[in-house]
């Protein structure tokens, strides 16, 4: 079953191509849409909601064509925008009831579901107070509640962790997971932080400059593996210490990536750690070569690095383009 399908979907603005022949299929579950700022994530959501016409290509949401069935789609999906969207002078309850009615729920059902939904997102007594006095975390919950109140089949969450502190972020991610496991609602959630979503999502789609970088299931590696980043010193024997380590690792059949595009690229080696053995192995190799180990750290949070390989070149290109733009 496909929840979202796009086929060579493009969106061109006068000065930028926001989406570039994007073809992707998304199934039920929690799907992360990851990409740097300006990658085209919000643009894709607007097209999927049937609010902004694609320049080229086609897209379907829940089997409905976005070009012709926008209204039907919007009745079945929920949307949490990335920006603030809450009036400060009304209470969460009043606001969510109103948005429920805007989704077509009769008054009594709107009130009942508002109470339920606010409770599910973790808002209790405070829901009767004006939203203006809420913390960022509470506001994000209200935004989430209005997207869920009409019990959609699918929700689009645009950067829901934006502006949250680490604790708030973990709570939000936990909530997002529950939207699927407990509520049975499929989720498309975006983030510009590469890797933040890997534990939450069943599937991650990475886009960059409007192009698809990779679309794959996260279960493959997140359960068993983490990415290890290593940085070593150079010595007279080994003027390029990084390279020396890489060669030994390759000889032992362990793949590495060079983390290009990231700070310190070229001096950092990334490899997939299968467990404690990998740490020991790296430590031994570095010691055997007589190099100093500057760092060896877990990088669970850089899913992109696991993905990159083949796309390094393309990424490099884009980075340059961005550099010129800024």
């Amino acid at each position, binding site marked *: 079953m496909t929840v979202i399908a796009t086929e060579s979907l493009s969106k061109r603005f006068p000065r930028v191509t926001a989406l570039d022949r994007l073809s992707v299929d998304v199934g039920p579950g929690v799907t992360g849409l990851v990409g740097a700022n300006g990658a085209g994530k919000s643009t894709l959501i607007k097209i999927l909601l049937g609010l*902004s016409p694609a320049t080229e290509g086609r897209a379907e949401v829940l089997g409905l064509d976005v070009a012709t069935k926008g209204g039907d789609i919007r009745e079945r999906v929920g949307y949490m925008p990335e920006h603030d969207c809450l*009036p400060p002078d009304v209470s969460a309850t009043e606001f969510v009831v109103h948005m429920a*009615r805007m989704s077509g*729920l009769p008054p009594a059902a709107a009130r009942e579901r508002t109470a339920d939904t606010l409770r599910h997102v973790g808002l209790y007594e405070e829901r009767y107070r004006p939203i203006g006095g809420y913390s960022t975390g509470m506001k994000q919950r209200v935004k989430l509640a209005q997207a869920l109140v009409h019990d959609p089949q699918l929700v689009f969450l645009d950067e829901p962790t934006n502006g949250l502190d680490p604790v708030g972020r973990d709570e939000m991610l936990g909530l997002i997971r529950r939207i699927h496991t407990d509520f049975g609602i499929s989720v498309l959630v975006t983030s510009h932080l590469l890797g933040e979503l890997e534990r939450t999502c069943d599937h991650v789609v990475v886009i960059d400059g409007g192009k698809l970088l990779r679309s794959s299931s996260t279960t493959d590696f997140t359960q068993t593996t983490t990415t290890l980043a290593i940085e070593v010193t150079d010595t007279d024997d080994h003027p390029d210490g990084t390279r020396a380590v890489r060669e030994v690792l390759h000889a032992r059949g362990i793949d590495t990536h060079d983390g290009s595009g990231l700070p310190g690229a070229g001096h950092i080696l990334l490899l997939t750690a299968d467990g404690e053995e990998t740490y020991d192995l790296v430590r031994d190799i570095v010691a055997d070569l007589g190099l100093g180990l500057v760092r060896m750290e877990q990088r669970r949070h850089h899913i992109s690095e696991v993905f990159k390989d083949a796309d390094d070149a393309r990424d490099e290109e884009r980075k340059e383009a961005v550099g010129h733009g800024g």
Partner: protein
Amino acid sequence: MAVEQSPARTGEQTRIHNIGYRNYDGPRLGRAYARRSLYSQSLRGAYGLGRSVKSKVLPMLLFVVMCVPAAIMVAVAVATKAKDLPVDYTQYAIFLQAVIGLYVASQAPQSVSRDLRFKTVPLYFSRPIETADYVRAKYASLASAMFILTAAPLVVLYVGALLAKLDFADQTKGFAQGLLSVALLSLLFAGIGLVISAVTPRRGFGIAAVIATLTISYGAVSTVQAIAFDQNSTDAIAWLGLFSPITLIDGVQTAFLGATSSFPGEVGPSSGEGVVYLLVVLGLIAGCYGLLMRRYRKVGL
């Protein structure tokens, strides 16, 4: 007995402890219902209902100010057994135009600027409704709120007139003409107020701009009309009225609704000229609607 009690208790317990997610499989009433909901929410909001106590003060106060003179007139008419009301139904809104202006200046921005300022508009458009639904609901709700404001005192006058046993047919006709006139006025003023307010997310600017538009246009028109009257160019007086909202309404009701013109020397437009007035009013209403549609198509998400 015990057998009967236990299922009841279990039911209660599950109700209390069941905090699991429930799916909704009730009716989804769709776009027209959503539009009506937005209409009624906005209409209530125009009188501060469902909003803070503070936001109720001004609209309620203005409503009272609109009705009190009518109540006094009626009381006097009943007490003195007068032969007629001291004011025509059609004149009432013209007399109290400042109150009406203040109302639209305060409520038009509250209706639309807030949604723009707090970026709630994209949330509306992420639901089944479309631009036209939003614009119609907002336009209709403010026009209705203004109709309530302007028609309520007419109802007071009419009821009073009947209590004072004034001529029924006469009063009913006057009342109906008054209602038609304020309906037109409500549509025109709501449109102008909304178009101006929808330009800016800043409520204060909206209020100032609406007041300025209404008072400057009326001030300019009545000044030039007074000059024209001094110079006996009565033709010009009638045409000048086309350039401010309240004189437009005055012109239409003078030509078609049996009103006495409030122009200097009571020189209102003839029925021929009145057609132009009516066309301008309808054109402005349609124009305001068109501008609002254009504005909100751009806002999108």
